[in-house]
């Protein structure tokens, strides 16, 4: 299991170089334009605030997957579809995985006997209704419980509505290749378990950290480049602000565990409804999630899912703007 010597050498060299740079700040005397300095401070603040929750999510997801039996969750499953979907909506509490990690989980659940519509309900609700997402949202918007409550309720309701919609469909929403594919998501026995754990950490950390770094940069860039008047005009419009944030959520593809810190950057210029719409739409549908879900669901199913989530998120945003 030892790493190739060249890669180890490269990693060690990078580590030494990093420590050198951090300790000596070789560009300390360089005169940096204010706009660059502010971009770096703003983007780094999002990154530093969010990364601990990425780590926490990784640790919890690993523990749940490899050390907790899934019989614990399935023994209480109701038989009636409506109640079953509502129960499934809350499974994220016990499976606090980033939405990317939910896709292989959902695939495994289908293999175990879940109906595809139930798996969709799980996929859409689990990123929002989990302790880490709720905690980070509460931390980011500590002065505004409306956003936290609206996010959780909307996530629950939208996931169940869409699950009910797909439950009625006669045609299968699964790709043919997945229907033929048999994948066992069993946690391996002790021998080889460590290798699988480290492999999961490797894959999950890449999936989460790359969008997080880009998301941090986008947050910083929009704060320094876009004039305040544009942000306040767009952000203050009851309807346009919601649409703009939904589009931003789709593009930025940041993980649900930490997207609240990204949204916080717009809390003074965008309406509360726009922020809620971002926090509801983003965990369910974004560029990254669509590409992952394509491994399991048909194109038509994904288009319908995107449209439904978009419409319902927009309605949620408008309700928050008008009601609160």
């Amino acid at each position, binding site marked *: 299991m030892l790493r190739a010597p060249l890669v180890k050498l490269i990693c060690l060299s990078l580590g030494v170089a990093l420590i050198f740079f951090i300790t000596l700040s070789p560009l300390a005397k360089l005169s940096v334009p*204010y706009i660059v300095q502010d971009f770096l401070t703003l983007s780094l603040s999002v990154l*530093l605030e969010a990364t601990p929750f990425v780590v926490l999510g990784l640790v919890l997801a690993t523990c749940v997957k490899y050390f907790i039996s899934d019989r614990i969750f399935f023994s209480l499953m109701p038989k009636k579809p409506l109640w079953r979907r509502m129960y499934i909506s809350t499974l994220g509490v016990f499976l606090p995985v980033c939405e990317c990690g939910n896709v292989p989980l959902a695939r495994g659940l289908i293999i175990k006997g879940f109906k595809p519509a139930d798996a969709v309900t799980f996929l859409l609700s689990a990123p929002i209704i989990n302790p880490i997402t709720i905690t980070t949202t509460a931390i980011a918007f500590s002065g505004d419980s409306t956003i936290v409550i609206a996010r959780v309720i909307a996530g629950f309701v939208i996931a169940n509505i869409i699950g009910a919609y797909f439950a009625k469909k006669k045609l299968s929403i699964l790709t043919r290749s997945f229907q033929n594919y048999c994948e066992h998501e069993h946690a391996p026995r002790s021998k080889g378990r460590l290798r699988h754990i480290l492999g999961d950490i490797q894959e999950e950390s890449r999936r989460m950290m790359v969008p997080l770094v880009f998301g941090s940069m986008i947050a910083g860039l929009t704060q320094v480049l876009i004039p305040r008047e544009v942000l306040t005009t767009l952000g203050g419009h009851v309807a346009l602000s919601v649409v703009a944030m939904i589009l931003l959520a789709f593009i930025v593809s940041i993980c649900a565990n930490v997207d609240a810190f990204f949204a916080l950057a717009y809390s003074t210029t965008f309406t509360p409804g726009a922020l809620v719409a971002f926090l509801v739409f983003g965990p369910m549908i974004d560029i990254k999630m669509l590409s992952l879900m394509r491994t399991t669901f048909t194109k038509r199913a994904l288009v319908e899912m995107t449209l439904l989530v978009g419409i319902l998120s927009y309605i949620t945003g408008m309700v928050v703007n008008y009601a609160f």
Partner: protein
Amino acid sequence: MRFNMLRAQGGPLLLAIVGILTISLAMKGKLIYYIHPRYVVFTIILAIVAVIISVFTLFYRQATPRSTYNAWQIISGMVICVYLVVVVSLPPATLSYKLAVQRGAQEQGGVSASAATPIRVGRNTEKYRLEDWVSVLSQSVDSRQFEGKKAIVSGFIVPHPDNENAFFISRFVMTCCAVDARPLSIEVNLEKWRDQFVANQWVEVSGSVQPRKDALYGANIQASNVIAIDTPEDPYAY
């Protein structure tokens, strides 16, 4: 093949870099330039966990290399590398007066009360910090009750857009992290201040409070003494 293996380890590498950066900033006492002090301990603990997990993963996991990679992945990797190199090479910095202006630090009325904070001190106005003055003046119906009261506040200079003999003394108030920071400001009257100071410079202003003549609310500080200071260890208000 080796590039694929290195790229496959990108996640643990990123975690390690951010973890080491976090610990380094904490050791220099600069982590609070970026996040609220109440999250510092939690952040440091998780940063240490991140470094441990990353090192373990980097050196004991045989990565399964992907067989292909595209131009977008190469470009995104390069962008991230450049960004991280710049971030670790430059010294930590607080937000500048330019951002304060963009976020409304030059509000009319002499007081920018976008985030009124509760008053923490009693009647001794000399102990009021900038955020205390902003809170008091924004919540007061009649600012004349503070006329002549002594004020000693510190902050960075934001030029007045219309008056060459005045500037705003400002601080950012932070709720969670720097990205949500908003400026608090009070107008300071000081003739020809540009002869001694520059925009964005940290100063300590001593003077007396004067109600605005052209508005019902708000007040200025008539400066009697202004001295340059270093950027404080706690540059934000909370």
